[in-house]
């Protein structure tokens, strides 16, 4: 057991080392969400009548945070597909290490990268007027929630990365799925403008429940959701927790199994 922990920590350390060896990757991974903050803040911020204290940026920040951590799925999938393609996964599989070490190490490593990204985004948000008002404990919980969500999304990425085995395919596949998922939600605009069927989807979309949960934890009224008064929009924190548990409970075992049997 102790051995498995040390195995996955070695893999996680590898990813942190990668950040140090090629800082450009982390810089770009951070610039992109920071740019999104600025674009949405100044492009939509003027057009959307938010009706909350402090303006649109209060609603926007939780949305952009959730979108960013949802993309952990992409980071994991692309990273693993690249390792797969280069034969690195084969080498890991020929080593006397626990069968889950590589994938756990990867998901933890990607989550740690999120810590850096979230800090930078939070600072940029603060500079353009984001003022969470719920007090330090809830703010901390909010970020913890975001990291947990990113972590659970990461497990879907493991399965995708090991299944497609090619970096570019992984990249296209996840962008095609994660982008719509983050936009068919209450992250950036009210869901009331959507066709009815999409509204229902948006209400149940884990991205929406996460955004609603974060708005609650950061102390902003979630006026972009709750159009249908559905259960998930009324209990966003609980619903998000359920989603996270479900994601890990379903994808972690499948992904580990996939890793054990994967063959190039």
């Amino acid at each position, binding site marked *: 057991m102790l051995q498995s922990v040390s195995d996955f920590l*070695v893999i996680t350390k*590898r990813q942190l080392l990668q950040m140090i*060896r090629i800082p450009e990757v982390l810089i770009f991974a951070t610039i992109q969400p920071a740019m999104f903050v600025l674009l949405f803040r100044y492009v939509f911020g003027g057009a959307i009548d938010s009706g909350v204290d402090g303006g649109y940026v209060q609603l926007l920040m939780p949305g952009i945070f959730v979108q960013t951590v949802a993309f952990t799925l992409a980071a994991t999938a692309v990273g693993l597909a690249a390792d797969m393609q*280069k*034969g690195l996964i*084969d*080498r890991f599989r*020929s080593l*006397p290490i626990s069968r889950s070490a590589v994938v756990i190490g990867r998901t933890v490593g990607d989550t740690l990268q999120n810590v850096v990204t979230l800090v930078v985004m939070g600072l940029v948000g603060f500079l353009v007027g984001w003022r969470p008002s719920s007090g330090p404990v809830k703010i901390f919980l909010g970020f913890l929630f975001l990291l947990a969500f990113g972590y659970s999304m990461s497990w879907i990425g493991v399965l995708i990365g090991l299944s497609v085995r090619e970096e570019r395919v992984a990249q296209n596949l996840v962008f095609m799925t994660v982008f719509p998922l983050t936009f068919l939600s209450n992250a950036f605009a009210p869901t009331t403008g959507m066709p009815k069927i999409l509204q229902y989807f948006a209400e149940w979309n884990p991205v929406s429940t996460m955004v609603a949960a974060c708005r609650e934890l950061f102390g902003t009224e979630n006026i972009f959701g709750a159009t249908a008064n559905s259960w998930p929009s009324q209990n966003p924190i609980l619903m998000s927790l359920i989603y996270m548990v479900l994601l890990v409970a379903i994808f972690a075992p499948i992904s580990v199994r996939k890793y054990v049997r994967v063959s190039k």
Partner: protein
Amino acid sequence: MKSIIAQDLVKTYDKGTVKALDGLSLEVEEGTVLGLLGPNGAGKTTTVRVLATLLTPDSGSATVAGIDVLKHPDEVRKVIGLSGQYAALDETLTGWDNLTMFGRLYHLNSAASKKRAEELLEKFSLTDAAKRPIRTYSGGMRRRLDLAASLIVKPKVLFLDEPTTGLDPRGRMEMWGVIDELVKGGVTLLLTTQYLEEADHLADSIAVIDTGKVIARGTADELKNQVGGERLEITVEVDQIAEATRLVEQVAGTTPTVDAGIRKISAPVSNGSASLIQVLRLLDDAKIHPLDIGLKRPSLDDVFISLTGHVAEVVTEEVVGGKNASKRK
């Protein structure tokens, strides 16, 4: 003692339509080198992947260092080293980072993994490049580091899957030197290659595989003998071909093969040098002065063609074009 035993390995893909391994069996004596020789798609890599616990065969059994590969893969992983066809390293990290990481994954402690990394970098002449990311390494350096990574715990059995594919001639010579050193150290090595001369140079014995089966095995010499003994070959002027052919036939006792294009007459002979002298005398008497004359032992290329019915290798990938240019005739 046999270090590697594979029995009747079968592995099919696409619901049985593609047979990667079709009842492959082989044995490697402890401390020796077996060269697994075959063209692309013959099943070399699949064999290595099964023996290195990466792939489960549909049927058959295998032991490595006396351990059942299918029943106790974890135990096998502790005693093997694997260096694949594509250098499997983290390109963004330095050589040092890679070796210490693999050291930790082999459960060396921090100090031991650093010490081992230092030793290996030194041994493979990579100390100067230790702090550079792998992506800046040449192909040969990558292969050496990849090999180093597979030697961290001094494996009992080492698998090298096409260790020199894609290397330029210089990289190949370096790699051969490194492998020679290893073999002197007494490791049991299973090496796959599509280069006949590589198997000839590095391996104690050779198993020729084609379409998932071993079709011949033995030492390089035994395989050559299997094709036939020596051949007498002479080259003469065009107008002397007929007469020379008659004389060669007289000595060899069989009808020689004549390639009129390059004016070459050749025939199998049983008692090489005696036949050579005899033919020379007859030619001299007939006032024929051969442009070239000699005894030729069959090359492994000849062996390969006679066994498989096709030329040793058809590689089309652009990336390895360099090696073809340098190695193929």
